[in-house]
C-alpha cells in the first residue's frame, strides 16, 4: 500500500491529470485492445484514418497514472502521422517525451506502444 505520485515528474502529472486524448471515437476505422500482463490492467486505442494518415486518435485505459500519461503522449506523437511513421514510435520515444518514468512503470508505456500496433494491424487486416 504505497503512494507513488511523488516519483512522477511534472510532465507525467500534466498528461495524467489533463489528458487531451482520453475518450472514444464514434465509428472508428480501427481498434486495438491489450491486457497488461504485468499488472493485469487494460488499454484500448481507437483510430480514424484518412489517406493513410491518422486523422484522429483516442485512448481509454483502466490503468495507472503512468499508463494514462503514456497513452496521452503517444496519441499526441502519432496524430497526423502516416501509419508507417506511427509504427516507428516505440516506448522509448514515449518515455523520452515524458521526461522519464519510474523504473517499475516502464511497462505501462509498452502497453501504449503495443495497443497502437494492434490497432494499426486491425486496420491493415480490414484493408486487405
Amino acid at each position, binding site marked *: 500500500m504505497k503512494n507513488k505520485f511523488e516519483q512522477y515528474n511534472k510532465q507525467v*502529472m500534466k498528461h495524467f491529470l489533463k489528458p487531451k486524448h482520453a475518450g472514444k471515437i464514434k465509428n472508428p476505422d480501427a481498434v486495438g485492445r491489450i491486457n497488461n500482463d504485468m*499488472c493485469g*490492467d*487494460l488499454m484500448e486505442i481507437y483510430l480514424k484514418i484518412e489517406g493513410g494518415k491518422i486523422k484522429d486518435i483516442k485512448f481509454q485505459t483502466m490503468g*495507472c497514472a503512468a499508463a494514462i500519461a503514456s497513452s496521452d503522449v503517444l496519441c499526441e506523437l502519432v496524430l497526423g502521422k502516416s501509419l508507417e511513421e506511427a509504427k516507428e514510435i516505440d516506448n522509448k520515444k514515449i518515455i523520452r517525451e515524458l521526461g522519464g518514468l519510474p523504473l517499475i512503470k516502464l511497462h505501462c508505456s509498452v502497453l501504449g506502444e503495443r495497443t497502437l500496433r494492434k490497432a494499426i494491424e486491425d486496420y491493415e487486416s480490414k484493408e486487405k
Partner: protein
Amino acid sequence: MKQIYLDNAATTQVDKKVIEVMQPYFSEKYGNASSQHLKGQEAKRALEESRSVIARSIGARSDEIIFTSGGTESNNLALKGLFFANKGTGKNHIITTKIEHDCVMNACKWLEEQGARVTYLNVDEQGFVDPEDIRKAITPETLVVSIIHGNNEIGTIQPIGEIGRICREKQVYFHIDACQSYTKARINVKKQNLDFVTLNAHKIHGPKGVGALYIRDGVKIEPLAHGGRHEKNLRSGTENIPGIIGFAKAVKTSRNSDIKKMEKLRDKLINGILKIQNTNLNGPKDENRLCNNINVCFNNIEGEAIGGYLDAYGISSSTGSACSSHTLESSHVLKAIGLSDLQANTSLRLSLSKFNKEEEIDYVLEVLNKVVGKLRRMSPVK
C-alpha cells in the same frame, strides 16, 4: 492547497502533546538509562514510568513489556524468538492467516526455511478467521498461533477472546499483532489469554521507530540482538528514551471518545462512497471493523490513478492495486477475501485519525465523485 490526510493506517501525525513531553529527553534529560549517575537515573525513571503506562493499557505487568524499534521488530522477536527458544523440542508448527502484515508473513516464510512448518489459514469474505479452523489446525507440534488483531488493509477485528480460549485450552502460545487495533479495540492480556502482543507508537500519534512486545511472565524466547543485556536481555541496545516517553504519552492522550468520533466519520464516508454507482465495501460492515478504516473497490478504474487524482486535490490515500506495489502484485489481503486481481486493482483505502473533521469528509466525497466520474469516462471497461 488544504491537505487532508487519510492514510493514518500507514502512519499518523505526532500529537503536539507528545512532542512536548519528548523534547526535554533530547536536550536536557539525555542520559543513558543504564548509567548509575543522576542523568542516567532520570532517564531510567522515565523509562520505567512509560513501561507501566503501556503495561496498564493492556492489563499486563510492567516486567512483561519489552521496548523495541516498532511493530516489525516486535513481530519478528515474538515469532523468531519463540521458534529458536523451542528448537529441538519438536514444537515447530506455526499457525497464522493469509491476511497478515508483511512483517509477520515474511518472518513466517523465513522461518519455513529454518525448519518451521507454517499453516496460513483462510479467512471469509469479510476477512474473519474461523476460531474453529484454528482449533482444527492445532497439532501436538504446534508452537504458536499468530493473528493480526485489526487488519491494516480492510479493518477486520478478529475474535481474539475466542481464539485465546482455544489456544490456552490446547496449550499453544497466542501472539497478536495489535499495531492497528491498539487504543482502538479492547486488548486485555488476561481476559483474552494473550501470550504475546505487538504494539507500536506511530499508528497512535506517537513517534516512528518505537514499539513494544508484551511477553507473558514465564514465557521464554531467544533474543535476536545480543549485546549489553538491556530489556531483560531480550533486546539489547540503548533504549530510545525520547521515543518511549512519546509512546507512553500517545497512549495516555488517546480517548474512548476518539473512537466514537472516528466511527461516525467512517460511516459517513462509507455511506457517501457507496452512493457512487458500482462500488463495494471491502471488510466487515458491523462493529468488528476498525473505527478508522475504509476500503472500497470502485470497479473498472485503477486504484493507483484514483489516488493520484486525490493527491492532486490534497487528499492522501492508499491502494491495494498491483500498479502501486513494488512487485506489481495486488494485495494478498484483498485476494484472501476473494477479490480477483482486477478487482483488487480498483481498491482504495482511506484511514482516519482523531484529527479529521466532518467538513473534510464532505470535501473528500465531493472530490471522489468528480474523480471517479472522470476516470470511468477514461476506462474501456463499463
